[in-house]
């Protein structure tokens, strides 16, 4: 067991999260391996976003242990924590762009805070990130309220990638996008993962994303991981929810 874990970039052990008396995560274990795209699925309200937020440290856990890049985030000093935070990027479900900053300022924000480099380089890197996420440099001086939903997701991804992180959390990146846009986004994640060598933790509901973008899938149910593996493993599983999810009407449409 320990041998296989060496490559795990995120290691979640026996994590329990509770809101009031409702137990959302109940002794959950999960590994995310370096360089993979992990798709994280589960019924609505099962706690997918809660787990993401717990790993990032936005939601306190009752018990358990979370290691990211081999650092136990509870035991880490604040400087260790900051070092870890510089190595990950997060795409929030609604984008969470700073509404009073332009696209340019949003993308440059992390680099401006962490790196002492010239404005020229910041601008060039900003354009590079925009090009990478498939946007034109002309959007740089628009405000988030002037962008479409798909553009917001792309800009948010560009901001998540601003410091060239090794690990990216994507919370429902394709929700609210049209199928073509969603397909492009999956393609984009795949390309970026290849070019930048990213590890991607992707919460999603989108079957297409699971088929085209993800290397491995983990399924959350009743506060635990009920299955983890490839698409084929999922389809072979006897679990009723998995049966319905991967062999249901919508799933057949995707495969067909």
């Amino acid at each position, binding site marked *: 067991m320990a041998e296989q874990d060496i490559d795990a970039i995120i290691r979640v052990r026996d994590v329990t999260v509770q809101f009031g008396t409702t137990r959302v995560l109940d002794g959950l274990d999960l590994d995310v391996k370096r360089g993979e795209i992990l798709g994280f699925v589960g019924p609505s309200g099962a706690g997918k976003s809660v787990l993401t937020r717990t790993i990032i440290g936005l939601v306190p856990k009752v018990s358990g242990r979370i290691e990211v890049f081999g650092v136990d985030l509870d035991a880490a000093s604040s400087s260790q924590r900051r070092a870890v935070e510089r190595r990950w990027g997060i795409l929030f479900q609604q984008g969470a762009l700073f*509404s009073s900053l332009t696209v*340019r300022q949003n993308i440059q924000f992390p*680099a401006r805070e962490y790196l002492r480099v010239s404005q020229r380089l910041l*601008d*060039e890197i*900003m354009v590079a*990130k925009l090009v990478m996420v498939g946007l034109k440099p002309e959007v740089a*001086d628009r405000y*988030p309220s002037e962008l479409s939903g798909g553009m917001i997701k792309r800009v948010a991804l560009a901001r998540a990638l601003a410091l060239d992180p090794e690990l990216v959390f994507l919370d429902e990146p394709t929700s609210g996008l049209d199928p073509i846009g969603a397909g492009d986004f999956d393609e984009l994640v795949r390309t970026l993962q*290849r070019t930048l060598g990213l590890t991607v933790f992707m919460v999603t509901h989108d079957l297409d994303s699971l088929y085209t973008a993800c290397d491995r899938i983990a399924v959350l149910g009743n506060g635990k991981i009920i299955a983890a593996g490839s698409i084929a493993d999922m389809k072979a599983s006897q679990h009723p929810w998995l049966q319905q999810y991967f062999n249901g009407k919508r799933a057949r449409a995707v495969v067909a």
Partner: protein
Amino acid sequence: MSGDPTLERIAQGEGLALCAAGNWTARFAPALERIVSDAEKLRGSRPHIFIDVSQVASLDTFGAWLIERLRRSLSDASAEAEIAGLSANYSSLVDEVRRVGPAPRVVNDRLSITGMLEQIGRTVAGVSGTIIGLVDMLGAVLAAAGKVLIHPRSFRLTSTVHHLEQVCWRAVPIVVLITFLIGCIISQQGIFHFRRFGADIFVVDMLGVLVLREIGVLLVAIMVAGRSGSAYTAELGSMKMREEIDALRTMGFDPIEVLILPRMLALVLALPILAFLGAMAALYGGGLVAWLYGGVDPEAFLLRLRDAISIDHFIVGMVKAPVMAAVIGIVACVEGLAVQGSAESLGQHTTASVVKGIFFVIVMDGVFAIFFASIGM
């Protein structure tokens, strides 16, 4: 520290090889930028220049872009600089940054005299827009009120009561406390200065007239503008930002009727009540200080008060209250609906709501003073 990026210059006959090594990543970006700016000066020094990246330990967008930038600035019409020794892992990244064009220029809005003058001009010209907006909202609210009078069932009682609780009931403690203190201060100052003329007892006249006619209602109106006007603007503004108001409209509801009328009504009912409570608290505070500090016992205070003030003073104060409430409410709602998409805009409009609300309250007070003076009240 090991892993620091380097760029070694190795002459190769006619040409020059720039050998990059170490970590070319975001962490080392400041050092990388210096190295690359230095190397850019080599442009045109040799006929052949190529950049050897085979020794690079790790590469990310920052490093790849800086290498690409170096390549571009070393290339000229006669010779194209080349990148050599690119490993398969990194070639796609370098290809990616090769597509990057020049950054669009920042739209410059530096401070200048003309800019400042333009800003002042726009603000002055905007005043008429503000007035029109307020009158527009007043009309819309009255129209909605008329509709509700014709169809009383469409009146939103629950919402009105909820807002009444927020702006009236929950405001009572702070309003009473502040007006009580102000009453104490007026009384103390009055006694302190009037004593020199032996006119201590006239402090009761001053307190009574001032509190009932002016201070009571004005102070409470200013507090309500700060407390509830800002809340209305922030509520309506964030609803506007999240398209909740558009959603209401598409469902066939009039946002004025659903959101604004209950708020306005609550405010118009609340302010007279608060002004009355405030006036009572101020008189109480003033009387207490007059007794303890000035030696005017409560009985003498009440007797003097009865002589000094008439019901007119009280009516003048109370008549002003609902009008001021309407002004505060209309300003707050206009500002709330004017909020644009950003958090900054929400802040600006909330500030404007309070500032304009207080300004109009004071203007209204002046207008009332002239009016009541001319009708002899």
